[in-house]
């Protein structure tokens, strides 16, 4: 919950903003949630770009998943519960898939010499 210091001594909202104070908090929470989704999408895209340098076949799909996470609410006809369910499931599948590919690369892929100075 956000804490605001513009209430009076009785905890009442200021008279200058009588109607919209209580309504603004869900809007702000919605904004924070949208930003959290954007941060998550950026994390996928940035990490995909980093992986792209060492394993292009892995990096490109990771970047694509980041784009899909960001685009889904903008192109999907679903809203509300159904959209949120799909997005959370997409993120979980994306991370788990990347983990599976990473384990295969680690245990069965060509050995890497690592970065050397």
């Amino acid at each position, binding site marked *: *919950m956000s804490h605001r210091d513009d209430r009076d001594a009785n905890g009442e909202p200021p008279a200058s903003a009588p109607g919209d104070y209580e309504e603004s*908090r*869900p809007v702000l*929470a*919605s904004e*924070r*949630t949208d930003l*959290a*989704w954007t*941060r*998550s999408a950026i*994390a*996928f895209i940035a*990490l995909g770009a*980093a*992986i792209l340098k*060492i*394993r292009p076949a892995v990096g490109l799909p990771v970047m694509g998943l980041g784009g899909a996470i960001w685009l889904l609410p903008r192109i999907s006809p679903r809203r*509300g*519960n*159904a*959209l*949120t*369910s799909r997005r*959370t*499931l997409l*993120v*979980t599948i994306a*991370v*788990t898939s*990347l*983990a*599976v590919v*990473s*384990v295969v*690369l*680690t*245990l069965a892929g060509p*050995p*890497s*010499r*690592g*970065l*050397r100075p």
Partner: protein
Amino acid sequence: MSENATAGADEGSEPDARFTMANERTFLAWSRTSLALVVGGLAVAQLLPPFAHIPWGRAAIATPLILLGAAMSVLSYFEWRANQRALRRGAPLVRSQLPRLLAFTIAVIGLLAGALDIYSRVASR
């Protein structure tokens, strides 16, 4: 704007949207943590130079990190769903096991990495 409850969990009443959005943000935070663990493990395997005298050293550190990331991603999804149901029913929220799992596993992997490094250096003398 996100709303609460997943498909198949429509019982109960519509809770305050701020609580469901807080649940969503918590899930995303754990997902980003999971992603960081997976990519961190991949980086250990691909970017670290091999341990001297321990050909399996990098894999021994990377694999638990990656598996931890995958496990946390899946567990956080199920916790999100359970919390959604709890919010609709007005029930207590699920007590998360993820912080304990994360702390314990990272500690063990850290000790393992330290032990491998020390052994590698001693064996190289």
